[in-house]
C-alpha cells in the first residue's frame, strides 16, 4: 500500500515563529488532507489539497503531486497551534480509505 512519511517528527517553536511541515507519499493520490489534532484529541480538518496551493489565515498548504509531496506552512505561530499535525492520503479505488502519516508534534512556547 501507499506509504506516507512526515517530517520533522517533533518541532518546538517560540510564539511568533514560522514553520514548514512536510509530507512525502509513495504513489499518486486522489486525496490529501492535513489535520490538526488538538491536545484534547479532536481531529480538525485543515486542508483538502490533492494538488495546488491553498491558504486559510496563517496557514497555507502546497501539494506538488508530480513530485509526491505536500507542505504545510504555519506563520506567526501561536500557543493554540500546538498539537499533532497529520497528513493523510487516499490513493484511489472505491473505498476512500485514508492512510495517515505518523504526524508532527508541534509545541509552541509563549
Amino acid at each position, binding site marked *: 500500500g501507499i506509504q506516507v512519511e512526515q517530517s520533522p517528527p517533533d518541532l518546538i517553536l517560540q510564539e511568533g515563529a514560522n514553520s514548514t511541515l512536510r509530507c512525502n507519499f509513495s504513489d499518486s493520490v*486522489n*486525496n490529501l*488532507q492535513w*489535520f490538526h489534532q488538538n491536545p*484534547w*484529541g*479532536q*481531529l480538525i*480538518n485543515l486542508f*483538502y489539497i*490533492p494538488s495546488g496551493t491553498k491558504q486559510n489565515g496563517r496557514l497555507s498548504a502546497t501539494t506538488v503531486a508530480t513530485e509526491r509531496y505536500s507542505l504545510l506552512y504555519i506563520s506567526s505561530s501561536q500557543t493554540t497551534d500546538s498539537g499533532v499535525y*497529520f497528513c*493523510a492520503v*487516499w490513493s484511489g479505488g472505491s*473505498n*476512500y*480509505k*485514508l492512510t*495517515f*502519516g*505518523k*504526524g508532527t508534534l508541534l509545541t509552541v512556547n509563549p
Partner: protein
Amino acid sequence: SAVISQKPSRDICQRGTSLTIQCQVDSQVTMMFWYRQQPGQSLTLIATANQGSEATYESGFVIDKFPISRPNLTFSTLTVSNMSPEDSSIYLCSGTGDGYIQYFGAGTRLSVL
C-alpha cells in the same frame, strides 16, 4: 461539510466488558469509517462501515472483537468487545462528504483497567 457527533467522549471500563460507541452525522455521507489511535501513535483504520451489510475490516481487526453496525446512512456503532488494557485508545469515527473529504468526530477516549 459534515458534522459528526460521537459518544461517549470518554469512558473507563473494566477488563472483560464491552463498550458500544455511537456515531451520528448531520447529513448523508457516502462512506463511514472507524479508526483507532493508540497512545502516542497515528490513526489506524479498523473498518469501513457499510450501510445494511457487514463492515469491511482491515488486516488485524476482526468482527468478533469489533462488531460494527450501520443501519442507515447517518448512524453507525462500534463495539469494543471483551476489553483488555491493550484496547485503551482513542476511537474515532469519520465520514466522507463534499466528494473525497473526510470529517472526523471528536473521538472516544477509552481506558481499560
